[in-house]
């Protein structure tokens, strides 16, 4: 399984985190470590609890129980503002953009330059610079976000998470709607961000992408930890951990493909 980096302390350390939504036990007894300069991939089937975990770390949901340590201090992430202030930035699965505001306003929302007399010019310049870094193809930053395509919106959400110089950035399926070039750019960006010493939590259903950038792969299944893998682990191992069985629809399908048809 995974190698243990006992020499360093993780910047983010979760122990026994649980979350209950009424009758649904979305997360149970979750453990997670994220080190500086490391990409942790969080994988699992639909409804495994990945987004819920990310939302807890973003301060959107409060955990039912468990402890969270950030930079070696126990913290209570009781509001999104607090998480952002500490340096935990998030790209949410639903992107959480305001459709009635333009791209610049969305990027800087809650953190505008000069609050009493908004510096639109400087904000627009920062916006263009950030979007260029992401190889974004956005026609105008002065159009409402409602007029952007799904992938363009995703790029805006990613750009926004980088704006505040976070220590940890969490990306909930950031490449789900992106084109080939933009996906490559986001993966490059993840590597650049990691090399700058940030911790990255990446959620993705694309095992190829996950293997390409992740240092560790954490599997969630039905709201529980189900193993930690390295990118070198075999596909069968990963699929087994995600689905919870060696005999499953994925392996059967692969086996069918290997057999010569009609033989």
């Amino acid at each position, binding site marked *: 399984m995974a190698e243990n980096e006992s020499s360093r302390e993780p910047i983010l350390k979760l122990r026994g985190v649980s979350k209950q939504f009424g009758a649904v036990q979305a997360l149970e007894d979750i453990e997670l470590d994220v080190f500086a300069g490391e990409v942790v991939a969080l994988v699992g089937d639909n409804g495994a609890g990945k987004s819920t975990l990310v939302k807890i770390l973003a301060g959107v949901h409060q955990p039912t129980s468990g402890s969270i340590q950030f930079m070696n201090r126990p913290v209570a992430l009781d509001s999104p503002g607090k998480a952002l202030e500490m340096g935990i930035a998030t790209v949410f699965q639903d992107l959480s953009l305001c459709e009635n505001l333009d791209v610049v306003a969305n990027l800087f929302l809650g953190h505008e330059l000069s609050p009493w*007399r908004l510096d639109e010019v400087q904000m627009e310049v920062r916006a263009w610079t950030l979007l260029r870094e992401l190889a974004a193809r956005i026609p105008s930053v002065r159009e409402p976000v409602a007029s952007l395509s799904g992938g363009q919106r995703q790029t805006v959400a990613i750009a926004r998470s980088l704006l505040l110089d976070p220590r940890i950035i969490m990306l909930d399926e950031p490449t789900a709607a992106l084109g080939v070039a933009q996906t490559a750019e986001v993966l490059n960006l993840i590597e650049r961000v990691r090399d700058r010493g940030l911790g990255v939590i990446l959620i993705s259903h694309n095992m190829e992408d996950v293997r390409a950038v992740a240092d560790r792969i954490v599997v969630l299944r039905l709201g529980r930890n189900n193993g930690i893998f390295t990118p070198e682990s075999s596909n069968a191992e990963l699929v087994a951990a995600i689905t919870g069985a060696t005999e499953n629809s994925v392996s059967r399908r692969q086996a069918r493909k290997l057999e010569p048809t009609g033989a």
Partner: protein
Amino acid sequence: MNEPQAALDRSDSRVRHDEGIGGAVRGFIDRVRSGDLGVLPVILGLILIATVFWSLNPVFLAPNNLANLLFDAAAVGCISLGVVCVLMLGEIDLSVGSMSGLASAILGVIWVKAGLPPALAILVALASGAFMGFVYATLLNRFGMPSFVSTLAGLLAMLGLQLYLLGSTGSINLPYSSALVRFGQIHVMPAWFSYMTAILPGALILLLGLDRMRRRRAVQLSNPGGLSVLLAKAAILTAVLLVAVYYLNQGRGIPWMFGLFVLLVVLMDYALTRTQWGRAMFAVGGNREAARRSGINVSRIRISAFMLCSSLAALGGILAASRLASSSQQAGTGDVNLNAIAAAVIGGTSLFGGRGSAWSALLGILVIQSISNGLTLLNLSSSLRYMITGAVLAIAVIVDSLARQSRASHGRA
């Protein structure tokens, strides 16, 4: 406009870049067609209303009648400005009429009955407005009580308090010679001052626009429209304002009270479009959860909006009392409430939240006041006035809904 090098924001070749006055006009037409109507319907409506009433009775456009109209518009206009704030969040305050009535009762009781200084009475009235707004916002934040329920309860409670305060006599006359009543009935701007204020907006647009162009060029951003559009805007605005001021000065002139209202509109417009608070207002109205996740304190924004709304309603009540020189049981009842809300919507602030402008209070109240003034001139009873105002409101809401659908299909939510 020739740029020294490709501007930072001009890298995408698929976007048509509108330059100069022709470009600005084309961009405007595009926006209108996609359902981003802005103030266009209201302006057209105002022109239509003015033409109809003028043809029925030319007195409608006489300078003195227009001055009267402006005197009458200020009080409900102030209330409507507050309503814009809560509508912006997708909330509503149905108690603004009662709030204004209560404020006028407080004014009468403290100032005339108790004989205390009027400034103190005004302060207490405004503070009671702020308090009510705080209560509504807290009910919403703590208990999730929908604002239309809590403000409906507030409407009744404040109406009761107003009647209780005024007691058996039913109304209190304010002294005619007092500055407050003269402010509400007589005082108009001196001619030279009104001309200066007419020039100011154009000059400001020009100066701020030039400064903005300079700063954008310095960081290699393009200047859509450029100097020509800026000059045209400033010139047209100045010309329109000068003509209007000249015309009004042929009669009584421009009421100070209306000047105060316009000043409040300008301040509110600045706050909504140029400050972090204003951004947060639009964000909360557009997507509350996204705003919260961006670190915006949604509860605090709601508190600020409801407090502003009720305080402006109280101010409107004070202005209405000074206009009528009395605090009566009728103050704030009848159509005040709905006129204030209708004005904001007619002016173009969306009932669905996240879209609107401080100017909609000004434009909307001009529409409503014109209708009411014109029908009074024609000696038509208030029954017809209610029906026509109701129809105009319905049209405004239909225009809002249609524009919203059109925006959605053109990607401009």
